[in-house]
């Protein structure tokens, strides 16, 4: 089954499937039902980070350098955690400026400088092409391993002509794929939906393939992790490979690799492509920032088991980069090795596809286009002709980049192991990070600083990594590695300035980034920005401000006709019509001046297609006068940020103000309420005092004026006068009590007393009076003694008041009152209930209000006259007294007699 025919059919069948998926994705996008509008697909497309280098090389690296391979994935994990801050800002800038690639991004930040863009594109081309070669090499090698096993793969590779090399044909098919799905639109800042859908699918395939080998190794070749690691532990030589000792450079190398992977993840052209350019919706970042790290964990989970299993079963002689394939092959399986091969193929092709699109866009927009524009000959081109040219350039670039990658692979690829090429490329991509990241947060970074930093960093990178690599491939005399060039020992590539003992990548990263950042910052501090640079710097650093630059800032003059002709030439008629379409409802008059907003849209559209440096050149060619009012942009940006700050402070202050005034309002409300209560109280007191006073006065006048009154009547009147006087003095006494209570001047004489005895005493005191009224008084006192702390006179006053009230409100026909005393937890409860109509639930608290008189239902005030009425102060005073003694007084449903029940609760006195 491992015959060449089967393998080729499966491999090219898989590529055909990619075409189908991509075509489907593009079809869906045209219908407006995007396949890739989900955060999960976005996260999967970021997984293009895991190339063939991950698929085959991680195991190789794990066998040699222990857990250090994990750092390549821990760095991106840190970067993705930062995504909601960092990448979100990049996405926002890119969509506002129609950024097409990382070269475009850096060029736009530093004043739309075409030379800087070209520099970045060139460095990317030099640094990344080997990485593409590495993917092609992985395809060739894995195919050879698959077909030749158990023969060693390399034996036959060297003699083959290029047309027998499968990776050559794969590269050709990929070129067709990329041309079909990567250059559909002229606007490179637009998404390639079909391509992204295919990439996401490939991410699933490689993950599934790798997990399959892992599970097979761990559970079929070995009896689970315990078995495998038991055997590893038994071999001291293997066990030592899992620790930090195996990591080159030790702790320093560890940190260096972490930083390298972190920066490379953000600055690799293909990662910029999927993270920023192909981002559909910045809200997808939240999901991706944990889902993508999770993907990384999954794809790395079995690397160590496979590496250890390979070493145990095949030994050091076998090529560890191929363990993923040779392990299932050694078990004489047929299907699994093929799946693994497809997994590796998917990892390689996805990387090649995205990287080639990113590089070809850079080459066409940053390298070729500015050159063509400079020749001026192009300006005479006909309608839409240049749009065709541009796509043509991009397509040629795609083929050339793939060819270059293939040549690199064919000519010098054999000298490097997989991992080495990958890390050299990473270190090259890291050179973009300072210009990009510092430029996003420091407004003062200038074009000269960025350019010099980039050049210096790249030169150091070349000297410390690239050239020594060539030397080790046998292209150069390797002597200078040991002695230094011309015998200058301090220039040795792997020990620059005598820094020895570091691993080569950390060493290269340290020196290249030091040169890069040092020059970027140093030169920026001593050079001036052009106005356009200042504007762009402000737009980049302030990108997260809401409502930034809604207004159009174009002030140059041009006619609509000229603008239309320009767009026509470069973008074609359809795109031009779209730009003009939303703009004018009115008749298209080509002589009229173009509106500033239209000019801005035209430049944006050109930026998306040509890169913003070229777009700027083109717009300037038709717009007269200063096209962009830079001064006003800067002042608006400055005021925007200042205004935002001032606004924030103002808002804070006004919130405080609102809170204070709310408090004041509440206090005022309370004061008014108290005032009202006081007035009411005074009115009630006067009223209550006047009633007995009036009757006293009336009877006294009768006695004075009517001398002829019979004796018994006179005696009755005197009796009334005495009674009313008593009532008056009682009332005054109560009012005084209340006043003392409320002002806190009530003097109580708390002492230990027995509530049982007190209750009985009170019952005796009112017994006589109750009998007179015909009230049946029941007493149910449960405890033998009830020690409480209280003022005996006052408490007796309360109890009598309760009994008196109950008697008044008991049933008229057969009045009954019941006094009970029970212990409740560490309190005593004295309850007085009656069989009257009771008190409605909503009235229960109101009976404790001053002068509150309960109206019996259906009873007129006249009818009440015969009954003893109270002042309405008894209960408020009782409650005040009980509260003073640490107890409570409340109303509830009478449990036995069905009327009202007043309960007094007092805490038990502590044992003396």
């Amino acid at each position: 089954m491992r015959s060449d025919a089967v393998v080729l059919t499966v491999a090219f069948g898989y590529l055909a499937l990619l075409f189908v998926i991509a075509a489907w994705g593009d079809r869906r996008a045209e219908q407006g039902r995007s396949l890739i509008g989900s955060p999960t697909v976005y996260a999967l497309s970021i997984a293009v980070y895991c190339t063939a280098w991950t698929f085959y090389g991680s195991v190789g690296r794990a066998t040699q350098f222990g857990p250090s391979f994990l750092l390549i994935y821990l760095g991106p994990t840190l970067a993705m955690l930062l995504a909601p801050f960092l990448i979100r800002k990049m996405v926002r800038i890119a969509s506002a400026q129609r950024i097409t690639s990382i070269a475009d991004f850096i060029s736009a930040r530093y004043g739309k400088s075409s030379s800087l863009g070209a520099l970045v594109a060139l460095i990317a081309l030099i640094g990344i092409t080997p990485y593409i070669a590495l993917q092609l090499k992985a395809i060739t090698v894995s195919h050879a391993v698959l077909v030749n096993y158990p023969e060693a793969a390399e034996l036959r590779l060297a003699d083959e002509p290029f047309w027998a090399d499968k990776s050559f044909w794969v590269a050709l098919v990929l070129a067709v794929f990329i041309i079909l799905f990567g250059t559909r639109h002229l606007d490179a800042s637009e998404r390639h939906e079909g391509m992204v859908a295919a990439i996401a699918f490939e991410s699933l395939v490689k993950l599934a393939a790798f997990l399959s080998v892992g599970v097979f190794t761990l559970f079929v070749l070995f009896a689970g992790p315990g078995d495998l690691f038991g055997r590893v532990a038994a071999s001291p030589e293997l066990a030592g490979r899992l620790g930090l000792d195996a990591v080159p450079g030790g702790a320093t190398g560890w940190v260096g690799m972490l930083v390298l992977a972190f920066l490379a993840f953000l600055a690799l052209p293909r990662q910029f492509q999927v993270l920023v350019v192909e981002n559909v919706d910045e809200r997808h970042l939240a999901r991706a920032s944990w889902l993508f790290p999770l993907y990384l964990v999954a794809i790395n989970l079995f690397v160590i088991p496979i590496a250890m299993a390979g070493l145990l079963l095949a030994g050091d002689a076998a090529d560890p980069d191929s363990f993923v394939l040779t392990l299932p092959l050694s078990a004489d399986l047929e299907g699994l090795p093929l799946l693994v091969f497809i997994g590796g193929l998917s990892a390689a092709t996805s990387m090649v596809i995205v990287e080639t699109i990113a590089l070809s866009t850079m080459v066409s927009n940053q390298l070729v286009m500015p050159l063509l524009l400079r020749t001026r000959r192009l300006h005479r081109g006909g309608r839409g002709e240049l749009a065709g040219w541009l796509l043509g350039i991009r397509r040629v670039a795609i083929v050339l980049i793939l060819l270059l990658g293939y040549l690199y692979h064919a000519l010098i690829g054999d000298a490097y192991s997989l991992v080495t090429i990958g890390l050299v490329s990473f270190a090259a991509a890291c050179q973009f990070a300072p210009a990009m990241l510092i430029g996003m947060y420091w407004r003062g970074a200038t074009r000269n600083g960025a350019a010099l930093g980039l050049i210096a960093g790249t030169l150091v990178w070349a000297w410390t990594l690239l050239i020594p690599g060539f030397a080790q491939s046998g292209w150069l005399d390797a002597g200078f590695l040991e002695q230094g060039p011309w015998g200058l020992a301090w220039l040795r590539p792997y020990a620059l300035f005598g820094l020895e003992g570091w691993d080569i990548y950390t060493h290269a990263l340290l020196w290249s980034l030091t040169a890069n950042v040092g020059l970027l910052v140093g030169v920026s501090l001593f050079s001036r920005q052009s106005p356009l640079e200042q504007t762009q710097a402000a737009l980049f650093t302030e990108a997260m401000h809401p409502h930034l630059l809604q207004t159009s800032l174009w002030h140059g003059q041009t006619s609509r006709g000229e603008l239309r002709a320009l767009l026509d030439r470069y973008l074609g008629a359809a795109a031009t019509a779209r730009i003009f379409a939303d703009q004018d409802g009115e008749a298209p008059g080509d002589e009229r001046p173009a509106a500033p907003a239209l000019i801005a849209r035209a430049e944006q559209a050109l930026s998306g297609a040509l890169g913003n440096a070229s777009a700027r050149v083109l717009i300037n060619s038709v717009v007269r006068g200063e096209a962009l009012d830079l001064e006003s942009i800067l002042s608006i940006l400055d005021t925007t940020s200042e205004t935002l700050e001032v606004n924030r402070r103002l808002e804070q202050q006004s919130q405080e103000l609102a809170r204070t005034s709310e408090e004041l309002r509440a206090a005022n409300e309370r004061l008014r309420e108290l005032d009202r209560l006081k007035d009411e109280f005074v009115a009630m007191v006067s009223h209550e005092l006047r009633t007995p006073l009036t009757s006293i006065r009336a009877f006294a006048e009768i006695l004075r004026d009517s001398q002829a009154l019979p004796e018994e009547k006179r005696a009755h009147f005197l009796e009334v006068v005495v009674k009313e006087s008593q009532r008056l003095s009682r009332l005054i006494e109560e009012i005084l009590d209340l006043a003392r209570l409320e002002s806190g001047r009530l003097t109580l004489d708390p002492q230990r007393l027995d509530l049982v005895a007190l209750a009985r005493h009170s019952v005796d005191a009112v017994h006589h009076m109750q009998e007179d009224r015909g009230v049946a008084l029941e007493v149910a006192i449960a405890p033998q003694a009830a020690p409480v702390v209280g003022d005996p006179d006052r408490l007796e006053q309360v109890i009598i008041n309760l009994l008196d009230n109950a008697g008044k409100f008991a049933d008229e026909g057969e009045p009954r009152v019941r006094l009970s005393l029970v212990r409740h937890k560490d309190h005593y409860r004295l309850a007085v209930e009656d069989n009257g109509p009771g008190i409605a639930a909503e009235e229960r608290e109101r009976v404790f209000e001053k002068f509150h008189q309960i109206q019996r239902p259906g009873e007129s005030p006249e009818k009440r006259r015969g009954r003893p009425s109270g002042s309405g102060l008894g209960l408020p005073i009782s409650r005040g007294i009980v509260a003073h003694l640490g107890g409570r007084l409340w109303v509830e449903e009478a449990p036995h007699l069905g009327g009202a029940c007043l309960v007094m609760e007092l805490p038990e006195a502590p044992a003396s």
Partner: protein
Amino acid sequence: MLNTPRRGERLLALIVLAAVLFSPPLVLVFDRPATGPSWLPLYLFAAWGLVIALAAWLLEGPSGPRE
């Protein structure tokens, strides 16, 4: 995504935590025993999983705005 300031602060704290977990002083602590397989890979996967779980909880949790 980061609508509330607390969310932003928490995420920043998580990033610092991840950076500390993945870097030498702690990494050295787990690189033992001297003989036999090192605990380091196991520790790295555990720390990695923890960081991802916290990030998922923070960014997808019920307190967050589901946009």
